[in-house]
């Protein structure tokens, strides 16, 4: 047994608690080690057992999610990201991850490094990233802090992603006061790989060499993982050194070098360094391969002099990877990184056993059991208490009859106002700052559709990608709201003609030690499981971000809306099926698949314009939803429709305007005498899809709908530009488009 240096003092309980460990966890560590850990070892345990790395408060529930599927090549938890078979010998690796806490205090770098981190997760597996998406949540927009956060986050995502050179093909931005001091920044990336060349994050073969490649190691981001595992408070700005600094140029070089490396036979395994840097990558790779490692910290290229062992071990300096190389093939690795002017330095070797040993200046500074540190190994697993919050019962008491039905003049004013609300209006101000076209594969630039469609050049295929979560629905009913999030993602993909394939999730919640937050979490997982089984879309991985809450002026804090963001992948076998959402010709018929409902629950109209906070999730029926989506895919495959768009936030009126704007075409529709006018136009009942078709296809269309047993209504027809509802004039499409397009930029410019 090796002797651990005594020059590093034994850790104390006080230090352990200062690093976010609980007293009972400190005892567990002593038991595992058979002695009291030294300060460096305590640091290692504190980050590896942090919520961020260990999932200790969520893993019990995460294990209940459906992970299996005949098309799954790499399942959730096995590698850095899940991989789905898309045919032709190709796989798609995709994942979503949060960078909420760093973005709350340093929005530019916080968001930028979020983009960097998620892309590294993809290319470390040997996949070339081809598309990015992001899902953002902020507080109310009429607030200077919110504008500062929004500007910083968007610029951070743009500057990093644009230079890295991967197009943004989709995303969402949502505003609510629950996110006032704790914005959510969720970044997703998808990459394509050859299924016979997946690189594993596993260390194997004692005697093989361990390399650190990419950037030098500095003091930035030390203990970022622990920082991400505590509440955001007024003092969080003091944690600024916990925020990393990104360099997209280094990331681009690292991408190209890593993918060149993937083409060789030199690599045993590779993992990117994200949270907890060298510590996490070395111990996780060792644990995965049931081996140990010996690492010499003196050999790690450093940015600063005199870095202490714990600083080197915990540094979250960006754009680095740990690579295990077959003995004798070191030269191959060094030559490739030399070509790209990047560091590639041998810092250790794989050894037998389970111990990862770090030494410096000839002394062992830490020796830990890899297995004891990791999720699925010795990391703690907790049950948490949950309790239904009082507001839930209040929501269910909502009675639509308590809301007065507006007269037609007011309906028109509401229709116009709705289009300008931050949650409904165009996010053009945001996405024009992202490069959406680099890579020449984004098929939606000139053909907008409900999900982003990315061309797989050289094949007949395309993939469809979307991120969705209406967190107000989830807050009002976690279980149904999360089912809706999955259903909406699937609906968006189905409306393009693609088939939903698998999901990744980013679970953003408040403090898990708050039983009401945990109740939301449990409900969300139950809902997600149910919906994913129904759509045949397994969960391939993702991340959990707890401790998201907004500080109140009185010092108290309230959790953000529970926000289980769903990132979904779909596969389009024949890219000529790609169906856009825009009306094509004046005179085309407009049909709605699914039924109108007397439902206002959780709508923008009810919640934002009428300021009614307590209402249930909108109408939703999972079985109907599955049928209706299959139906729209069938209509597309048979070429019976020329546009498809789902009814979601803002309701039917917003959806029709969205279909009209690209071609500047209007619509003339009739309402339903059984349904209140406000519910008909602005209600957000789920399970509805709008389609348009040329009149000649009407018989074929109706026959097909009849065969499928789907309810469907003829709403009206496409006009040259006028908007009519029951003969009442609602203005022209170009006026609606002006409101929709410019509202966000006007609000950003307003002081």
């Amino acid at each position, binding site marked *: 047994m090796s002797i651990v240096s005594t020059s590093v003092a034994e850790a104390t309980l006080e230090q352990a608690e200062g690093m976010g460990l609980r007293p009972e966890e400190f005892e567990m560590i002593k038991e595992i080690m058979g002695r009291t850990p030294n300060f460096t070892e305590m640091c290692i345990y504190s980050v590896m057992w942090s919520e961020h790395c260990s999932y200790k408060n969520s893993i019990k529930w995460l294990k209940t999610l459906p992970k299996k599927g005949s098309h799954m090549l790499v399942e959730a938890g096995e590698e850095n990201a899940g991989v789905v078979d898309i045919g032709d010998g190709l796989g798609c690796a995709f994942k979503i991850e949060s960078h909420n806490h760093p973005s709350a205090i340093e929005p530019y770098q916080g968001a930028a490094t979020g983009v960097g981190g998620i892309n590294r997760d993809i290319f470390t597996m040997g996949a070339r990233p081809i598309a990015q998406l992001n899902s953002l949540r902020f507080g109310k927009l009429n607030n200077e802090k919110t504008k500062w956060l929004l500007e910083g986050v968007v*610029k951070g995502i*743009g*500057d990093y992603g*644009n*230079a*890295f*050179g991967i197009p943004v093909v989709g995303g969402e931005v949502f505003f609510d006061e629950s996110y006032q001091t704790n914005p959510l920044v969720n970044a997703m990336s998808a990459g394509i790989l050859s299924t016979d060349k997946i690189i594993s994050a596993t260390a194997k073969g004692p005697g093989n060499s361990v390399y650190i490649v990419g950037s030098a190691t500095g003091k930035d981001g030390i203990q970022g993982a622990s920082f991400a595992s505590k509440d955001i408070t007024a003092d969080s700005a003091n944690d600024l050194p916990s925020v990393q600094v990104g*360099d*997209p*140029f*280094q990331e*681009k*070089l690292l991408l190209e070098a890593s993918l060149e490396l993937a083409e060789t036979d030199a690599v045993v395994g590779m993992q990117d360094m994200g949270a907890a840097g060298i510590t996490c990558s070395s111990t996780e790779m060792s644990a995965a391969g049931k081996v140990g490692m010996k690492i010499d910290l003196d050999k790690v290229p450093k940015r600063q002099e005199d870095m202490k062992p714990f600083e080197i071990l915990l540094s979250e300096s960006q754009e680095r990877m740990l690579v295990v190389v077959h003995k004798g093939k070191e030269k191959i690795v060094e030559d490739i990184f030399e070509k*790209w*002017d990047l560091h590639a330095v041998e810092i250790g070797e794989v050894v037998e056993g389970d111990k990862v040993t770090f030494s410096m200046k000839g002394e062992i500074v830490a020796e830990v059991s890899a297995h004891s540190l990791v999720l699925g190994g010795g990391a703690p697993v907790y049950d948490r208490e949950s309790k239904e919050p009082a507001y839930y019962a209040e929501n269910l008491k909502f009675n639509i009859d308590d809301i007065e039905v507006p007269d037609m003049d007011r309906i028109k004013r509401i229709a116009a106002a709705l289009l300008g609300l931050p949650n409904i209006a165009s996010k053009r101000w945001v*996405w*024009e*700052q*992202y*490069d*959406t*076209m*680099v*890579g*020449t594969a*984004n*098929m939606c*630039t*000139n*053909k907008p559709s409900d999900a982003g469609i990315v*061309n797989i*050049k050289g094949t007949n295929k395309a993939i469809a990608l979307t991120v969705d979560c209406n967190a107000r629905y989830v807050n009002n009913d976690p279980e149904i709201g999360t089912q809706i999030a999955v259903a909406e993602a699937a609906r968006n993909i189905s409306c393009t003609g693609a088939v939903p394939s698998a999901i990744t999730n980013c679970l953003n919640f408040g403090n898990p030690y708050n039983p009401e937050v945990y109740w939301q979490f449990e409900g969300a997982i139950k809902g997600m499981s149910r919906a994913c089984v129904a759509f045949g879309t397994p969960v391939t991985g993702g991340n959990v971000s707890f401790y998201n809450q907004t500080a109140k002026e009185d010092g108290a804090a309230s959790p953000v809306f529970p926000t289980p963001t769903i990132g979904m992948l779909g596969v389009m076998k024949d*890219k000529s099926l790609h169906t856009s959402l825009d009306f094509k010709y004046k005179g085309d018929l407009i049909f709605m698949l699914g039924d109108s409902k007397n439902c206002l629950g959780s709508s923008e109209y009810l919640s934002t314009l009428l300021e009614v906070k307590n209402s249930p999730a909108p109408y939703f029926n999972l079985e109907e939803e599955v049928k209706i989506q299959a139906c729209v895919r069938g209509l597309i495959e048979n070429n019976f429709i020329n546009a498809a768009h789902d009814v979601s936030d803002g309701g039917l009126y917003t959806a029709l305007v969205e279909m009209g704007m690209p071609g500047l075409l209007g619509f003339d529709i009739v309402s339903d005498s059984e349904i209140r006018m406000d519910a008909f136009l602005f209600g957000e009942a789920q399970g509805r899809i709008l389609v348009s078709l040329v009149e000649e296809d009407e018989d074929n269309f109706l026959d097909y709908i009849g065969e499928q047993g789907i309810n469907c209504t003829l709403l009206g027809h496409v006009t040259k530009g006028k908007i009519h509802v029951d003969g009442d004039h609602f203005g022209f499409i170009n006026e609606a488009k002006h409101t929709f397009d410019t509202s966000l930029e006007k609000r950003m410019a307003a002081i």
Partner: protein
Amino acid sequence: MKFGVITFPGSNCDQDIIYVLRDVLMQPVEELWHKDTDLKGCDFIILPGGFSYGDYLRSGAIARFSPVMSEVVKHANSGGYVMGICNGFQILCESGLLPGVLRHNENQKFICKNVHLKPASSSTIITENLDKYKAYKIPIAHAEGNYFATPEQMKEIQDNDQVLFRYCNEEAQVTSGSNPNGSLDNIAGICNKSKNVFGMMPHPERAADFELTSTDGREIFDGMLKAALV
């Protein structure tokens, strides 16, 4: 005619232009590396878009010191064709092969969107086969595309008919509202006096593939090939 596309560290549109030249236009393409010291017999050199060397000093300012650039300068000075797109245009301005500079966009933001271009000069291989009254829909994607030149440089550019394209609206009218970034005289692209070195901020290679349902860029390449191959 053999095309050579240079990859600088940080280039990210190199594969896009190679794809269009090789797979869409069926032209021979040599992939050149910034450390190369010869142009491998290429006739037409393209400097692609991206963020060469991270663009940390000023866009294109470091790339001009790349080993391959001294060969590009020689090639240009002996009459060979050189074209820079986006970051490539910035590099050509920094290296003195084209007049003027590209400043930060007027709104201080990165802008990515479709814009419209009106061909100007009819005495260059890039524009001579294009319709002078048509608005070509081509995307831009840059933070520093705001073209500026001194009054003396501008006079020379005008006198020698060196403007390739101007930003215009959908009706091919050159208006201030159709200028996306504040460029002087709505200039989107220019050439040198001898009309063998070309630079433009918009990306024609992003509008050249039928699968993306936007193909005005292809007309620019087709016209150029027709003129250059005569």
